[in-house]
């Protein structure tokens, strides 16, 4: 696969990720947590559970409920966001929760809920995949058993180039296509896949292949963050 050598507005190569920092276990009230910086994006995630699902009538006797709430702080975007959750936040919460549930052994925890709360504190495109990546780490930090981690990235097109990890500036390009995706890195199966924009199947395939590669890098960073966390916990 050929990757374009043209430089992007921020100087990155087509298949180059922005800088990503992941820290697990940052909050003492949550069962699991993660703080992640991905370029300008800043995300905090807390995980609670498995805990009894209440009120009782929402309980599922066959599995844990996975409740994923994605929200953006009012000041995390260029123009102040209305504090009320918008339809975008509701849709993202739904599909990202489903993506994670695909990896969790929910059948082991009947009648419970696993709550995953995400807050975006600063943003510059790609917040949903940043949050998903952080949430997978927070779930692991909480000791929730999973088939695999979930690693997420956004790929797409801007200014004629197929690229990974679009910035806001690139998302605003005339020909922009944004494809948020998340895979289980060991099986390479897709648990999240969305798309905005118009492109051919060939371009799409090229973008997806770049995304798969990027997810392996992200997976490495996730494992590294978890390793640090376990070493620190052992010392305590």
């Amino acid at each position, binding site marked *: 696969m050929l990757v374009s050598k043209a430089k992007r507005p921020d100087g990155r190569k087509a298949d180059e990720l922005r800088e990503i920092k992941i820290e697990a276990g940052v909050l003492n009230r949550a069962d699991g947590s993660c703080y992640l910086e991905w370029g300008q994006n800043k995300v905090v995630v807390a995980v609670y559970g498995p805990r009894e699902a209440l009120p009782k009538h929402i309980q599922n006797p066959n599995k844990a409920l996975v409740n994923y709430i994605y929200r953006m702080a009012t000041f995390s975007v260029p123009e102040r966001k209305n504090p009320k959750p918008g339809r975008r936040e509701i849709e993202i919460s*739904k599909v990202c929760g489903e993506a994670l549930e695909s990896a969790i052994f929910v059948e082991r925890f009947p009648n419970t809920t696993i709550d995953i709360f995400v807050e975006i504190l600063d943003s510059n495109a790609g917040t949903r995949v940043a949050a998903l990546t952080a949430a997978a780490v927070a779930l692991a930090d909480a000791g929730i058993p999973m088939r695999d981690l979930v690693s997420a990235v956004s790929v797409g097109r801007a200014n004629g180039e197929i690229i990974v990890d679009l910035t806001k500036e690139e998302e605003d390009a005339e020909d922009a296509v944004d494809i948020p995706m998340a895979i289980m890195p060991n099986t390479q199966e897709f648990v999240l896949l969305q798309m*905005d924009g*118009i492109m051919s*199947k060939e371009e799409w395939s090229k973008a997806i292949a770049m995304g798969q590669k990027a997810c392996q890098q992200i997976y490495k960073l996730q494992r590294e963050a978890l390793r640090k966390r376990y070493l620190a916990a052992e010392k305590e």
Partner: protein
Amino acid sequence: MNEKVIWDLRIEQVIEKLKKGKRIDGRKLDEYRPLEIKAAFSQNADGSAWVKLGATEVVCGVKFGLGEPYPDSPDEGALSVNAELLPIASPVFEVGPPNEDATELARVVDRGIREAKAIDFKKLCIEEGEKVWIVFIDIYAINDDGNLFDASSIAALTALLNARIPKLEDGEIVKKEYSGKLKLGKLPLLTTFAKISNFILLDPCLAEEKSKEGRFSVATTEDKKITAMQKGEVGAFKLKELENCIDLAFEKSAAVRKTIKESIGED
């Protein structure tokens, strides 16, 4: 309770049959249910469609409203897609504002249309920076027997295709008079698949939806472009499966597009 038992049996049946390569209603894996469309059924709507896809029924109405443009696109009209899963449509749907399922449905239909540039928003500008047309697409589920996504997409596209733009006089809408039809640049349609026991099924009926391990929808145009995608529900897809779905979507949506055109007398 009994409801649950019945569905559990139906799910068993779906899977049993699939293992023999058969669908519960006898269809092929890549076959749509019968599609009926009644275009322009509502007189008060500016455009409308009543869609039956098997026993699934969805109605959609288009209304044009006047509003201010967004500051960053002062010469463009706007689009607002809403969906309601009416309690009429299913014993499990509840009264109230759109829940997350309805929100996802509306937004996926919206993206398919918007990203295909089906609507030329510049033509919906009345006075730059001041007044534009807002296209409201309102979708109501009437009977949910599975695959509300495709039924809604078909209803929305048909309603847009028969929509007429109201006449303006002194900046106000003249009731029951129209200045012309809305013209569409592309005809994007959603094609939805369910994955069950590693089979990929087109246009899942309700029993199949309840059995599924993942939903995948792709919006495509008549010139084989992809304009939106949505993997939803719990479950995971292999790349190969997704690629096959895209190819099937190109092929199957063509036939649907033909039925839509017939429904509006354009064939």
